[in-house]
């Protein structure tokens, strides 16, 4: 737990309170146990030769400790509830994102009042710091769970239900997130990153991201664009501003500017992108993108095309 948001800091505070209480209780139990074992009462009397006043006192001590336990847990419940209130506090002016979980990647929709200002991206979420962010969570298939430990606790993405979570990042940085609910074969490789940016930088990014992909200028990229459609990639992937409008896989409009590939499985660079295109099943066995039958020159063209989609 390395908090960089209001919520994660709140949680850490609650946790520390609990940890301290737990440590004290455990130490007390072990000390009493040890002391009891080291104590040597009168040797070998009969097992049933009990001393009634002692039995009475022992019973009272036990009950007293029981009452103490009740008080402690009720106090802890209050601490917990206070933490819960602040962690789940809602701010109506929050920036709203909508995230849809897929086996095994994340679809991210930035909603805006006018439709042409909202756009979709995948596996990478950029947010402004010092501003509450509301994330609406849905699932396209099975249950997933949205979790960025440095920002806040997790919340499930449940089929047929909409959940919501809010957080406010305090420091700029890249925070790793990960699916936390077992969702099948590649649950282990369903990560994402949250990039928290200063507000103006975020605004610039948002404007840029909202744009469609321009027409490629160099011929190799142009060829790649055509092949992207001809070889079937467009059945599953969208590249805004082109004819590619598939919905089954991540939006690739600005894939070239992302930091990871295949839901955080690998850092994105020329080599990993090439390897992914050549055989996605090798990198992430069982993922839902089939290995595409591409000639090596076709692969080079598509590779080049994707890289320049910044």
């Amino acid at each position, binding site marked *: *737990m390395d908090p960089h948001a209001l919520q*994660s800091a709140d*949680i850490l505070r*609650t*946790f520390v309170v609990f*940890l301290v209480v*737990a440590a004290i*209780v*455990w130490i007390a*139990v*072990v000390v*009493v*146990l040890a*002391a*009891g*074992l080291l*104590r040597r*009462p009168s*040797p*070998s009397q009969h*097992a*049933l030769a009990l001393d009634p006043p002692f039995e009475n006192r*022992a019973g009272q*001590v*036990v009950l007293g*400790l*029981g009452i103490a*336990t*009740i008080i402690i*847990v*009720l106090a*802890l*419940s209050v601490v*917990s509830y206070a*933490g*819960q209130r602040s*962690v789940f506090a809602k701010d109506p002016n929050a920036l709203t994102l909508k995230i849809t979980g897929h086996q095994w990647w994340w679809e991210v929709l930035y909603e805006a009042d006018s439709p042409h200002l909202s756009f979709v991206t995948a596996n990478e979420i950029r947010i402004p710091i010092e501003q509450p962010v509301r994330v609406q969570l849905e699932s396209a298939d*099975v*249950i997933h*769970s949205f979790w960025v*430990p440095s920002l806040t*606790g*997790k*919340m*499930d993405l*449940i*089929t*047929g*239900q909409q959940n*919501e979570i809010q957080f406010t990042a305090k420091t700029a940085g890249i925070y790793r997130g*990960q699916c*936390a609910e*077992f969702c*099948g074969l*590649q*649950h*282990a490789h369903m990560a994402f990153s949250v990039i928290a940016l200063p507000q103006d930088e975020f605004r610039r990014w948002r404007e840029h991201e909202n744009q469609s992909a321009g027409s490629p200028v160099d011929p190799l990229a142009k060829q790649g664009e055509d092949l992207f459609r001809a070889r079937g990639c467009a059945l599953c992937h969208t590249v805004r501003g082109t004819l590619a409008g598939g919905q089954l896989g991540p939006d690739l409009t600005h894939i070239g500017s992302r930091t990871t590939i295949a839901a955080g*499985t690998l850092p994105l660079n020329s080599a990993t992108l090439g390897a992914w295109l050549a055989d996605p099943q090798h990198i992430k*066995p*069982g993922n839902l993108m089939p290995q595409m039958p591409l000639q090596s020159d076709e692969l080079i063209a598509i590779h080049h095309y994707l890289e320049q989609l910044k």
Partner: protein
Amino acid sequence: MTLVTQHKELRDDVLDGLQLSTRLDRIWRTPSGLIGALTSVDHKVIGRRYILTAFVFLFLGGALALLMRVQLAGAEKHVLSADLYNQVFTMHGSTMMFLFAVPVMEAFAVYLVPLMVGTRNIAFPRLNAFSYWMFLFGGCFLWISFIFNVGPDVGWFAYVPLSNLQFTPSKRADVWAQMITFTEVAALAVAVEIVVTVFKLRAPGMTLDRIPIFVWSMLVTSFLVMFAMPSIMIASTSLILDRLVNTHFFDPAAGGHVLLWQHLFWFFGHPEVYIIFLPATGMASMILATFARRPVIGYPVIVLSLIATGFLSFGLWVHHMFVTGLPQLGAALFTANSMLIAVPSGLQIFCWLATLWDGRPVYRTPLLFVLGFIVVFVIGGLSGVMVASVPIDTQVHDTYFVVAHFHYVLIGGAVFPLIGAVYYWFPKISGRMLSERLGRWNFWLAFVGFNVAFFPMHFLGLMGMPRRVYTYIPDMGWDRLNLLSSCGAALFAVSFILLIANVVVSARRGALAGDNPWDASTLEWATTSPPPSYNFDRIPAVDHRDPLWSDTESIRVVAGLSAERREVLLTSLAEADPQVREASPEPSIWPLLTALATTVFFIGSIFTPWAVLWGTPPMAVALIGWFWPTGSREDEE
């Protein structure tokens, strides 16, 4: 109204000594040979089998755990594929929970409860035999499926929609659901037997406040079984119906709801963990009294704690669902409720501490395991209190922190007392002592190995490692702690190998135990080790909570039961006054045949719904065969 027997039959009041015991043995003995083995209804024979089988499943599940630990020992290892890993952790969890932890507790109860309450056999001995066969067949079914690569791979709680047909089109989830049905039938049967044994078969004079604590714990546990397991039966049936005949319980597109599954599962799943834990606390109380050389302080407190835990455990299930987006205030109530369970658990611990404080502890292996249990379980209980807090749980839910929590409570809270129980009751069951030297090694290796294996998991969880991942990337900094944990697991495994060695060697060469090697106080030690087929040649009569301590010279008994046929004494519920001499069933092959017919029915129904039609008649025939009077005398009064 009541009919006095006309025929002048031989009773145990006119016989004595060897004459009596040979006669009793002739009527109660399990016939020898294969047929005898298959038809036996002796609770000791079945209990022994049950215990042994459950331990085999522990070792199988443990072997899978070791596989997982090898895979996770470093980042991006390729020992197991993603697909195999998912099967392995599901098999591990399901085997441990459904085929080891719950059955092993019931198994000990099947063996011990009739002896502890001073009767000759468990209530409904044939049901008991049936229960064992169902358990065995269900377990084999699961493991054979696994060997043929149709082992379940959706986790031990098989959340929908992942376990729906759409996302698990293979038979894997069906195997899981049907294995549940097998084990639940088995567990429910034992629960009913235990309840009736405790209610009606107690030795005369064993009033409610003289019942040994382990028996109390099993009584409460049996009620938990009876009220929790129907929920999972309905759930697994609904799941399998969704998968096989296209119902829509969990299909949001047709009005179903995926959280319904989670509610049903955890309404069972939470009491389930106390079904495992409460008997273990009962064992701990028994062992503690014997080796602290005095009765446990606070008998009524402990009994009330057991009952309170039982009640509370039905009001906590939502704490497994804190991140599913339920209403906040409701969730907070479940937080408070979950933490309240610390009170009865704590009271038990305090009673034990007080007992040790006043006692004169004799440090034999069983006591060592109980002391280890206290130290370790409290850690697990306290981490339970942490995860019961909603804000904390949103961070640590589904991480290795929770994995650490539940292994601390399951192993620390249940397996440790259980191994202690093995050392404690092995002399009774086998007639021979386990080696004390090996026992100490066993304990210390287990204690150190366990903590090294599972303590680091707390940190891993806090560092963000989710559970159920077959691998992780190197940059997370999780490798070292994982490696440490894997080493601890290896050490822990060695301790189990010592246990096996100890049992195997001592069963043949251990020192002879005698009736009561530990000078314990409860009735199971009043008979020989191992006990004769009829348990007691005369039914003991109890006038004290610790009968063998209150009178060390003689034992009070009642006479007048038949020496010609199987007969047990029924007593009244509260005061245990003798009421009826009831016949107890003879060995029978029908329970096995019924279990076989049921197995065909259950497994067949995975493949075709028609199995429900053609599978029913054989079951009905077997059941009629089971209950049809054989014409032997005890049926014909």
